[in-house]
């Protein structure tokens, strides 16, 4: 398939992204460039200067809601992309409704608690929907430890499943973006193998 044919094909799909921080904003950017037609992105944070070490935002956007800033940035890549950005906190109750109709959901939260929450919710209340989780991306280097692990047809994990974020082991752009790109790459692979 040629690049333009791939874009035309991916246009038919809808991907949900839970969180618009280091993972979610970069993953959205990559999926927009690849040509995914509709992105549903949820986050209730505001862009801060400290986010710019890894997140897909810019200095002049500090103070903006991440959802608004992300729509602006994605529209600069593809003015036709359909971005449904919701300024809400996701929880067990709203996830099935917010991400209804998505072909794939990307987990892009910061906290391990929220990661566990969305896995439980999607696995138990959205059968058949593929969830791509990120776990273990803090620090720098150690390229060889980052991988994708298939749990089953509906659940994948990208990351090293080991490096936890702390003051001494912060999330930095290269490693966070590698994991975000692995999530996006896997989402494209899953969509390309799906008939629509």
């Amino acid at each position, binding site marked *: 398939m040629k690049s333009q044919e791939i874009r035309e094909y991916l246009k038919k799909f809808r991907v949900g992204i839970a969180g618009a921080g*280091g993972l*979610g904003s970069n993953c959205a950017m990559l999926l927009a460039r690849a040509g995914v037609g509709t992105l549903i992105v949820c986050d209730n944070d505001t862009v801060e200067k400290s986010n710019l070490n890894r997140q897909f935002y810019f200095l002049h956007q500090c103070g903006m809601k991440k959802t608004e800033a992300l729509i602006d940035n994605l529209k600069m890549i593809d003015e036709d992309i359909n971005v449904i950005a919701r300024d809400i906190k996701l929880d067990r109750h709203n996830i099935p409704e917010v991400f209804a109709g998505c072909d794939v959901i990307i987990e892009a939260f910061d906290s391990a608690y929220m990661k566990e929450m969305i*896995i*439980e919710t999607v696995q138990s209340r959205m059968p058949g929907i593929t969830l791509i989780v990120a776990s273990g991306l803090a620090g720098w280097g150690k390229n060889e430890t980052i991988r994708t692990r298939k*749990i089953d047809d509906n659940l994948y994990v990208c990351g090293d499943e080991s490096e936890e974020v702390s003051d001494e082991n912060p999330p930095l752009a290269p490693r966070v973006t590698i994991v975000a790109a692995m999530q996006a790459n896997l989402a494209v692979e899953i969509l390309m193998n799906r008939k629509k």
Partner: protein
Amino acid sequence: MKIMLNNRMEEFDAKSLTVQQLLDIKKYSFRMRTVKVNGRYVPPSEYDKTTINDGDNVQIIYLMSGG
């Protein structure tokens, strides 16, 4: 019994184990994680009730903060 634990064959002396016992034996108890047994998601409230038997496929995902 022999089980597949994260795609690797592992052998245990017991004939069967609960999910909680497996987590304790493997010292996984202090981390955030998700458990699936034979493709079924096991909620934490069922770790004491869900048994793992010979030949089962157990997947444990370690959840690290950061994003």
